[in-house]
Every structure is written in C-alpha cells, then in structure tokens.
C-alpha cells in the first residue's frame, strides 16, 4: 500500500470480501488523475510519451510536447518536483460506536482503512492534488460504506439520522469544486457513502426509450452496457470515464454532445433520492408535468447536501448509424466564435458538438494564418449518414464565410481524444513546477469575446502582481453553445519556481479570475458546480431571496444537517 497509517486499524470482518468490484480504486492514482498505468512522462531521450494501453495516445512519443512545455512555461526537465510516494499520518477515525454497531448488523460493507478514507476525501481541485502530492492529508472521512442498492442507502440514512452521523455521498470523485472536502470543523463521524456498487442497469424500456439505472454507475460503463443493447445516452462529459450518474445529477452536468442529446436535466425522466425525511420521487414517468415547481430541480445541483441519488430513469437513443469527426481552422478566435454562433442558428440537430480553442499546440502551422492567433474548431457529427454528410457540408460552407478552412477528420478526432487526456497533462506539469487548472462559465453570445479577453488578461496581470516569475498560460475555449450563449473554459497554468506558496497564489488568481468572470456577465458555473470553492459568490448569484429558498429546502429536508458536506449554501 502507498499509505502508512498513523494508527493500527481494527480490521472489520465486514469489509472488502463483500464488495463485488472495488476495481476503480485499485487501478486509479491516489494523488493524480486517472489510471495508474496512464500518464505523460519524459523518457530518457527527453521526449514526451504517454504510457499504458488504454488510450489511442498510449505508447506514442510526442517530440513537440517538450518544446511546447518548455517554451510555454519556461519549465525545464532539470527542475523536477516529484510527488511524495506516500502520505503522512492520517488522523485516526472519529467513530460513533453505536452507529458502527447498528451498521454491522445491516450487513452493508464498510471500511475504516486509511487508504480507503483518503481516497474519498478529495476531488481534483489543484489544491487537493497538490497537497496529496506533498503527502499532506487533512480531515478525511472516518468510514466508507458501500451500499449495493437503494434499500441499503435507506438503511444507512436512517442510521445516520438515529446516531447523528454526517454523510457525504461519493460517486466518481471527479469533483472540481472542493465538494468532497470534509469540513474541518465537523466533529461528528463522517461517513463517505460510496455508490460505486450501485452500478446496474435495472431495466431498459425500448417502447419509451428509457433506461432505469442505479446512480453509482460511471459514464463509460453506462455507455458500454447500453451499447450492448444498441443504445446510448449521448451524455459525455469530459470526466465520463470516472464520473457517476448520481454525480451528474447532483452537479447539473453537461456533456460535449449536448447539442443533440441535451444536458443531464434534459436527459432525466425520473429521479429517486434518499433524504433524512425519506425518499423523494415522482409518481409516474410522464415526460413532462405541470405540478408546481419541478422537484427534480431541487435535486439537480443539490451537490450532496440533501440526500443520496440512488436510481435514475434516463432517456436513451439508438446508437448513431454514422459518426464523423471534423475540424476547421479559423484565422482568429473572433471569427471562430462568430461562425459557431451562426452554425447554431442554422443547424439544430446532427451537429453533435464542437470545441473552439485558440492556439492549440497540436496545430501550430496553417497556411497563411498567424500561428499566434489561429484557432481550431473540432467537430463531431452523428446521425444517419445522409444527413450527417449534408450537414457537414453546410457547416463547412458557413465556416468558409468566416475565413475557416477545413482541417481534416484527424485533427478533429485528435481534438476529442485530447479532451480525455488533458487532465493527465496537469500531472506532468506538476512534476516540473507547473501548476494549473481549468474553470468554466456560461455567458451570453455578445459577451463571449469580451469575457475571454478580459479574464485572460486579468489572469496575466494577477500573476505578475503576485510575483509569478514566468508568463502564465492563460487561454480559453468555447465548449458548448446554446441559442442564448455559450460555455467558455479557461485554462490557466504557470511555472511556480521562486514562489513560496504557489497554491495560495494560484487560488488568489483563480479568485480574481472568477470576480472578473462575474463582472463580465458570466455565470458562477456552467456545470462544475459550486461546492465549497465558489460558495462565497452564491448570494450575489441567486439573490438573497433565492438563497433563502434554497436554505428553507435544506432546513426542511435535512434539519440535522446529516448531509453535512457544506456545499452550496
């Protein structure tokens, strides 16, 4: 084990052997993104390579990456900051003996093992990963339980209420809003409710094109299982390899194919959630209802503060007959944005998704374009073959009006693939004094260019003012489009050599960037959620009355603050 625990733990007879698939934890990094076997590294020749066999990129050598890395950040392969291989002492668990006793009698598996607890004490914010790499561990859950179905969750919640124990639901652990951080001031036993064993598709209804799924299932598994029956959900957030259905519901997730399939709130037909007051769910599967405010919307985005989502009925679609990638290079970001706006007004379906990124490192030269200004849109078309081809042509025609040139399927596909490996890049950076993060917002169309320029500039300026010695990477991309606006991602990373507290500097800059986003008409979050990271802006975001509404729901549903992760409010 990579862990040395400060205390010897009483091994519980109920642990592990009951668990059918604790797989993820064993094949995933404890202090970085993704699979243990997959990572970027520089080989002995100083060339970057991606290890493992899981991705198309795996095993490939990327000579250009080193140069990009060194020139963008002023980083050097000589200056390494390797992660500490194991963590420091983990605090011994605070145990509510009566609760433990009652839990044992239910037969639901649980663990007090330090490794299990640390694994579920964090998401993937920079400060969380940075601390883990330095071997630092703060407050962690005192126990982990693995319910295997809805009824298990009902029992756990009942016991938690009975014994006043704090529950924190845990799905895929891919949060980037400090949502999984245990409140350090929490004195009760904190139990991490790991939903990973609730991972079955309970039924598929082909007449109504719905599937009833347990909420612990992770995205790629859901898609794989549905594909076996010839269906898909089309919900593909960047984290879909690891993030869970329940997590999507709890954060209002969005996927890159949302233009065809919709966001999570459009995809769910029915949600079942266990709360301290009991189970909340609708009485039927009607596709839409006029029954007062939609109670699903109290659940969607509740970030684990009200209960545990256990089962979801989701819309499904037959797998697309035909899929085609594409890409367009624009002379500049402005033209690209204008093009996307126009594409959207003309073509409503088929056009599955796209991402628009300025200055990507995989296309650096393109005839006649200023390499410092050019921008690439990656495209994905899905549907029946004829219409895909027809719309593909339409999109390229529109692009041409904005000076865009088709840049091939390969570039498009590579762009999509990069979406999944980009999180691995951060770990590489962290080996060499480079820290960074991405954050997102949504903004009306007329403000997209302004917000991009101002936030990027604010980041650069804040870095300078805070003593960052090297010019930071400060870039953005448009990842989602709507009739009324777009989702914009910002990427921010810098070389922190010479800084005594780089994470603090990072946080201050991100804070300033968020202020700038809000001042420019951007939202607090498009799909990452609020968690604890962005709580301070909630009141101005939803108004005082809005806060009161949310609070009163929380007060009714969970008066004892059993779901005490303190997100959102």
């Amino acid at each position: 084990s990579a862990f040395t625990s400060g205390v010897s733990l009483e091994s519980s007879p109920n642990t592990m052997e009951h668990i059918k698939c604790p797989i993820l934890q064993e094949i995933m990094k404890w202090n970085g993104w993704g699979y243990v076997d997959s990572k970027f590294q520089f080989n002995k020749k100083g060339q970057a390579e991606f290890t493992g066999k899981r991705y198309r990129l795996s095993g490939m050598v990327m000579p250009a990456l080193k140069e990009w890395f060194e020139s963008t950040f002023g980083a050097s392969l000589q200056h390494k900051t390797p992660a500490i291989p194991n963590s420091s002492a983990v605090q011994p668990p605070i145990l509510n003996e009566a609760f433990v006793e009652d839990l044992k009698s239910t037969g639901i598996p649980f663990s007090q093992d330090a490794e299990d607890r640390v694994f579920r004490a964090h998401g993937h914010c920079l400060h969380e990963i940075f601390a883990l790499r330095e071997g630092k561990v703060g407050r962690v859950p005192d126990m982990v339980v693995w319910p295997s179905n809805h009824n298990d969750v009902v029992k756990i919640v009942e016991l938690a209420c009975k014994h006043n124990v704090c529950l924190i639901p845990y799905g895929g652990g891919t949060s980037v809003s400090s949502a999984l951080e245990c409140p350090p001031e929490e004195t009760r036993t904190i139990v991490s409710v790991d939903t990973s064993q609730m991972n079955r598709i309970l039924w598929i209804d082909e007449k109504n094109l719905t599937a009833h799924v347990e909420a612990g299932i992770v995205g790629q598994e859901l898609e794989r299982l549905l594909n076996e029956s010839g269906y898909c959900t089309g919900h593909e957030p960047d984290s879909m390899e690891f993030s869970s259905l329940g997590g999507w519901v709890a954060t209002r997730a969005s996927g890159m194919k949302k233009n065809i399939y919709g966001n999570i709130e459009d995809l769910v037909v029915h949600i079942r959630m266990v709360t301290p007051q009991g189970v909340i769910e609708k009485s039927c599967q009607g596709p839409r209802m006029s029954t007062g405010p939609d109670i699903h919307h109290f659940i969607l985005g509740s970030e684990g503060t009200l209960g545990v989502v256990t089962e979801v009925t989701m819309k499904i679609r037959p797998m697309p007959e035909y899929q085609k990638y594409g890409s367009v290079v624009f002379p500049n970001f402005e033209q690209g944005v204008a093009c996307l706006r126009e594409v959207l007004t003309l073509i409503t379906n088929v056009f599955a998704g796209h991402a628009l990124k300025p200055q990507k490192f995989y296309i650096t030269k393109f005839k006649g374009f200023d390499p410092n200004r050019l921008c690439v849109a990656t495209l994905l078309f899905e549907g029946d073959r004829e219409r895909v081809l027809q719309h593909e042509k339409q999109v390229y025609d529109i692009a041409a009006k904005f000076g865009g040139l088709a840049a091939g399927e390969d570039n498009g596909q590579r762009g999509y693939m990069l979406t999944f490996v980009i999180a691995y890049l951060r770990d590489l950076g962290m080996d060499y004094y480079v820290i960074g993060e991405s954050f997102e917002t949504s903004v009306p169309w007329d403000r997209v260019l302004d917000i991009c320029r101002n936030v990027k500039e604010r980041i650069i300026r804040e870095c300078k003012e805070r003593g960052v010695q090297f010019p930071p990477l400060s870039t953005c991309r448009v990842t989602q489009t709507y009739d009324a606006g777009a989702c914009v991602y910002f990427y921010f990373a810098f070389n922190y050599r010479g800084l005594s507290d780089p994470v603090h500097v990072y946080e201050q800059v991100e804070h300033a960037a968020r202020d700038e986003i809000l001042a420019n008409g951007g939202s607090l979050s498009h799909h990452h959620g609020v968690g604890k990271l962005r709580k301070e802006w909630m009141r101005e975001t939803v108004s005082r009355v809005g806060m009161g509404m949310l609070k009163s729901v929380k007060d009714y549903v969970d008066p004892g603050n059993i779901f005490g992760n303190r997100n959102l409010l």
Partner: protein
Amino acid sequence: MASEAVYSHRDPMLKKRDDFEDILEERRNCSDLRYALKCYTPVVYKGLTPCKAGVLKNMVLQSDQLHYVINQVSKETGKAPEDVQEEASAILEEMAHRMQLSTVRFFAFTLCKVFKTLFRSICVNEEGIQRLQQAIQEHPVVLLPSHRSYMDFLLMSYILFTYDLALPVIAAGMDFMGMKIVGEMLRMSGAFFIRRSFGGDKLYWAVFSEYVKTILKNGLAPVEFFLEGTRSRTAKSLTPKLGLLNIVMDPFLKGEVFDINVVPVSISYERILEETLYARELLGVPKPKESTSGLFKARRVLSEDYGSIHVYFGQPVSVRSLAEGRVNRCQFNLTPRHIPKRPSDDVHSFVNAAAYRLVRAQEENMVLKPWVLLASLLLQNHHQDLDQDRAAGPERGMGLDELTEEALWLRDVCRQYGAFLHWPDHVPPSEVVSSSLDLHRGLVRISEGRVRLAVEHAAGPSGPGVHPGAGPEEQLLNQAVVVLSCASYRNQALHVFLRPALLASAMHIATSSNKQEVFNSFSFLRNMFSNEFILCPGATMQDFEEACFLLVKTGVLQITEQEVLSTHRGHRTLAFLTRMMDPFLQGYQVICMFLCEEASEALTEKTFIPAVRGFMVKQLLSGRLRYTEVLSSDLQKNALAALLRLGAVLKTKGADQTTLKVNRVMVNSLEDTLGGKLPTQKAAVARL
C-alpha cells in the same frame, strides 16, 4: 466614506516630479522642414486592428447601439428609419475627424515657426512621454489636458508628433468649425466637432458617444478632450464636465475593453495669449466669435514675448483600478449593453469623483512661475492701498526690495505646501523679480523703485484697457481689466493655498477658536465655494485635516483637542491666506446683498449677470466695495450656482424664460455668515 481613498493626501513635500526638456531648443538649431517631414512611426495599441476613416464611420453607423436609437427615434417621431439613418450619417459627417498626416506635417512646420516666435521654450517632462508611450501600447488611452488657451490642443498634437507618439483625436467645440479653412484643417489634424449643447437630442448623443467609443475601444487613436469643457478664463480649474468622461469610461465598465488609461496633462503658460481677452470677456465685453480673420488679427500677439510653456504628462491612471471596489460592474449584466441607459447613482458618483481627482491631478502638476507669487502679492498690496486711501499717494505700491523679500517668503510657504514652483534658485532673487516684472510689463508700473498694478491710466492704444480716459465707470472697467488679468495669475496658485486659506478664513469668521466651531465654519465655506474652486465632493474632513496638517507643520497653528489657535509667528501667513480668500467672500456677500435689496420679482437667469454687475459698479464707485475683481462674471455665475444648489434661490421655468425666486431670509443669513456676523449654526450647516 466611499470617497476617502480617491483623495487621500500625503505630505505634499514628498511629491516627486519629473524634470523637463525644452523641445524648442532643437528646433532652433535644425531644419523645421526636415522636422515636419520626419519619419513618423508611432507605437500603437497592441490590440489595434487598423482601419480607414470610412470604415470607422461604417462601424459607427452599423453599431447595435446606433441601430437601437435610430429605431427608437423613428418610432417616436414617425420618421422612416432610413431617414433617421440619413440624419445620423449627416451628424457623423459633420462630426468626424479626417486625420491626414500631410496636414499634421503642415501644422508641425507652421507651429514650429509660431512657437519659436512666441515662446522662449516649451518644456515637456520626457519621463511622462515614456510613460504615455507605454500606456498607449497596453490599453486605450484618454488624454485630459488642462484648458487655458486655444493653443492647448495644437500644442498637444505638436508635442505628440515631436515625440513620435500616436496623434490623438480631439473633441472640439463646434464654434471652431465656423473658422472655415482653419476648421477643416483642424479636422484634418485630428479634431472632431461636437455641438455645444444637444441635451435632449438622443440621436446626436448616440452618434457622438458611439463615435468616441468606437475609436477608443478599437485603440484607433488616443482620445483627447478637456475635462473642464471650456477654456478657463480665470486660470482656475473649472468644475469638471462629466459627459465625455462618462462615455470614455463606459467601454471599461461594460467589459468591452480590459482597461483604459487616463492621462491628465497639465499645460502651464507663463503668459497667456488670451490674457486681456479673457479679462474683457469676464467683464461682459462679449467674446468675439471664433473666425479665421479674427485669428489673423491676433497676429499682433506674434510680436510679443510669452515666456515659456510647461507641459507635464501625469501618471496614467487606470480606470480599472479607479473603479475597483467602487462600481459593481455586474449591474450591466441584465440588459443588452447596446441599449443606452442613464448612469446609475454609483456610476455617476464614481465618474464624478474620478473627474475631480483628475482635475486635481492636473492642478498639482501645473508649473508655477515666480510671477504668480508676485501677482498675488501685488494684488493684495493694491487692495491694501485702496483700504488705506493711499491709492494715489507716493506710498502706494511696494518697494522692489520689499516685494522681493515677500516673494521669497511666499516662495518658501509655497514649497512647504508642495507647489510645483519653478523658481530659479541659482539666479539672484532681485533678478528673478525684475525679469518676471519685465515679462508682464503690461500689468505693472515701476517708478521710483516702487511697483504697483498698472491701474490708474488707461494704458494707451496698445495697452490692455478698454478705452482711454472716460467716465468713472469706464475707468473702473479699465482698472478691472488689469486687476482681473493679474488675478488670473494669482489663481494659478490658488489650488496650493486653497485649503489652508479656507481654514484661515474659517477661523476669521468663526465666533471662537473652538475646534468644532472652526470646523463648522470651514465646512460652511467649503460648501459655499464648491462651485468656485475644485473641492472634491464628500471630502470635507480630509480637506480640513490637510489644511490643519499644513498649518501645524509650518508652525502657523497649534491644534489641541478643543481648540485651533494661531501662533505668534503664524500671523503673517494667516493674514496672507485670509486676504487671498477675501475677494471671494466679499463677492459672494455683495451678490447676496444684491439679491436681498435690489433683485426684482422679474429677475431672470439672463438678466442676473447684467443686474448684479450694475449693482456692483455702483457699490464700487461709492467706495463701499473695494474688490474690482468681483466684477468677474465667473464669480457671479459660480455664486448663483451655489445659491441655487443651496436652495437659497429657486428657478421657476416660465413660458419663455427662467425666473429666479429669492429666499430672502436664507440669502440674508448666508450673507451674514460669510461676513462673520452670524455663527455657522449647526442646523444651517447640516442643511447645507
């Protein structure tokens, strides 16, 4: 208090200022033609997308904002949108600049010649130029020069051309356009023309604001305008006008640019070309309409010596940092940004506070010449002579030695107050004094070693007087021309002394030395005079503290918990400061007196100035009033504005004119308070 950080004051002695370089020196040694034809490649804004003048006009006409207003106007008036669009296009045509490098070069060449004839030197702080160059590359730039002369904007462009900096587009009053050829030439050197008043004209406002914003947002050129709105005829800074400042700050507040750099520029003239012209204008001799032939008549000025000009490019001020914590930019999130909206209260007070801060930044970097001190002293001496009835005797005026001694004393006071005084310390003081007097010989008489203002004779055909030898009223006006000209130089230093002088006067009119009472009087005076001088809104406490700080530091006052006491050696300073304020105090009192005693029911805004002037002339001639300075229409207008603001006079809009209704009780009590006859009651202060 929200405004505190904006006006925070430090010890003025600690102010650091750059050195100057004379840009005429090189011109006197090399070819003007080569200079005018030099390679001109200014650095530009990093985000610039260059575009031609025609493209700019299209951008403005195609803008969402203009479209919106055109449709709105069309709906309101019933005119076809195309017709309104035509109107907009015509407005733009009338307004837009057509900058041409060839015209700029022509001006550069001509101005070289003119400047070399008129001025001994044009001194520019080169560090300021470097800062400006940097600022231009980073963010859109707004240049805000002080405005004392027609020269100002030609001079600005000339300097920027000389230093190879981006030439600004300049907001100019429409009256210039009346000067046929010159108007067009100014247009081709970057001026754009705006009507003096277009209050209710939505379309005009939309075209105008969009035009300015388009230039600014795209970084096409620095935008230059005068915060004071018009030339100050008195050399005092004028209350800033907020219209254009609102427009140029808007793109930042709405997130259309990351930041905007605002650069205050202080232009100080040792001798103002328009000196006596201004004095006459203030006395009610109407201002000649700007015309080309009028400009040529002004050729006479070419034969005179106007000393030197100092141009100080101040520290660029980032609008972003000004707005930090003051304006919540989220307020623009909920309506489309192209829909014109009145500025909200917080935006209005932010822009207002910023405007004051910028005018003060201009004031602070104004270079004061020794003559400014001499003028102050001679003016005070002139009034003392009148007071002591020796205006005609041999005792009148000041001995040269006495004047020199007093000037040296005042020089030191001035420096302690942080003034930007250019007193050549390496030259013997007597020479400094005599050369200053020589440059301004039209305003002074020197005989038998004594110096006095040149008031008693009309100064002959070439002199500044109105008409030679005439009735007593004309003689009075002749004197007033000289006094007002002189006062305009004293006014250059007013901002240095203003706060201590208000405190000195407050001590004078307060009934006791009780600190609270002195503060009440200070606060009353400050409020009364806030149309007269640049006093930042809401900064009474800071101003009081600054005044106390300076006077305590210089040993003039002792301030305890309870009391404000003058020291023995502080008497001289206090007397000087009180005398400096006195013309203003008396002027306002006389106006109050007029309103109480003479003002008829039919008094209108239009008849106010002539009526009050007539009253004052009578008072002056009868010897009940000694300051001819009060004849200045500037003072009269400011006083009326103050009384209106305080509610002592009310405007009632009639069918064809606005009548003024006087609250006699209130005016009377203001008059008495100004005269120290009434204590500044707490109630009155609170109400004000």
